[in-house]
């Protein structure tokens, strides 16, 4: 498992580096209390959310897409590595960036003033939601492989259902933000519950991975 993870990290260093660099850059701004885009309301409010949250996840998404494109599951399945170890390595590589950013922000929080604490709390919720989003994509992807016959039969239904669920999820988040529930979540540490939901979905996806009918893709 260690070898699989080490080689994946080495190979994808260009995609993993931003996941470290972006939060590190954010930390510099927090510690030095350097506020930017104060005159542009939208950027002032969402710049860091886009840079640290969406920015990091964009690279994680590219990593996952590249992994699928290069048929890494097929490569690893042919190696003398047990399915269980392969599953753990896969799960760790998916979860680690999220845990890293989350932990990094937790360590940063005590050094932040009121303004930055608000930004960080917003980031917790955002990265937790993005984590759920990626875990859900992985879950559906794994479902496709666990029973090919059913997948072929219900492919359109699953695809449309997933698109609808993602759209519904996004609309709900916008709605919850608009009516002020997300700020309330922030106040009560709701991001922990969102993150836990993400973990449960990711664990489900890993469980399905182990039961796949094929690892050819």
């Amino acid at each position, binding site marked *: 498992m260690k070898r699989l993870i080490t080689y994946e990290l080495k190979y994808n260093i260009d995609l993993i580096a931003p996941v470290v660099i972006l939060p590190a850059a954010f930390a510099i701004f927090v510690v030095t209390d350097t506020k930017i885009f104060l005159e542009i309301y939208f950027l002032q409010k969402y710049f860091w959310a886009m840079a640290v949250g969406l920015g990091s996840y964009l690279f994680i998404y590219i990593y996952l897409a590249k992994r699928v494109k290069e048929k*890494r599951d097929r490569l690893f*399945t042919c*190696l003398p590595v047990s399915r269980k170890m392969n599953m753990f390595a896969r799960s760790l590589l998916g979860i680690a960036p999220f845990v890293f950013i989350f932990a990094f922000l937790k360590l940063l929080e005590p050094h932040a003033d009121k303004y930055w604490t608000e930004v960080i709390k917003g980031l917790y919720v955002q990265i937790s939601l993005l984590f759920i989003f990626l875990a859900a994509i992985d879950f559906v992807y794994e479902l496709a492989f666990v029973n090919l016959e059913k997948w072929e039969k219900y492919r359109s239904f699953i695809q449309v259902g997933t698109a609808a669920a993602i759209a519904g999820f996004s609309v709900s988040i916008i709605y919850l933000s608009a009516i002020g529930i997300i700020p309330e979540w922030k106040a009560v540490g709701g991001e922990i519950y969102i993150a836990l939901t993400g973990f449960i979905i990711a664990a489900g996806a890993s469980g399905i991975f182990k039961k796949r009918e094929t690892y050819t893709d």
Partner: protein
Amino acid sequence: MEKAFELIGLNKKFPEFELGPINLELEPGTVLGYIGPNGSGKTTTMHCMVGLVKSDNGLIKIFGRENDPNNVDWKFDIGYVGDKHVFYENWNGEKNLKFLSEFYPDWSDKFAMDLAKRFQVPLNKRARDLSSGNRVKLSLIGALAHSPKLLILDEPTSGLDPVVRTELLDVLFEVVESGERAIFYSTHILSDISRIADELAFLDNGSLKLKIAKDDLTDNWRKITFKLMKDNFNTEEIVFTAKEGNDYKVISSDYKKTIEQLKSMNAENILETRMSIDEIAVEILKRK
């Protein structure tokens, strides 16, 4: 002595295709050609063997050990060149081989480098920039460098030009000559396998038609023409009959027996002709 592999009632169902049940085995040190048209189930059989596809029923044993995905000692004994060649595409050949070497205690860097030199694989080139021939060669180096006892090769020469095909077969021929390794080689290009195979297994539409020693096939199958004053002539050994008046053309799987029968029936102008493996394969696969 343990068999190199045993497939016992191997079965896999897809919505529009079913493989098996297949019963097949291979002795260590022998080469089995797995022959069948495209879509006959050759690749699926191999995918099941290496663990890429989960079979629905049956048992697969590699040197006596079940191909359990969580107890993978059996994987050290196999080298697999599949229908697709997967690498870290942005890494060069050398780095890809280095990656593979980490997983096999018996990996020989020297052997890998010797093979690369022999095959003229540009190891400094990124995998994604390699030609299809060089990708096959790199896969083969990866499969051979840990000296597996069983090589599973899925149409390794498919899509290669004749020069590269010959080079590749030369290396396989050397591997076979050492007499220690078993090779399970799927192909629909019979001229490739006829040079190195000891046995041939014919697969069509998911069913195993016949498994036979290559020499038995080439020695016993013959095309026979003769004249017989009889409306019909058929025996168990006859796999094909064409008749025009009293002139017959048959294909027999045991020409000596057929000729004896013909003589006893006073057939005239009996002429037997040897058949190539390609011709025999076509007849076997045509038989329902």
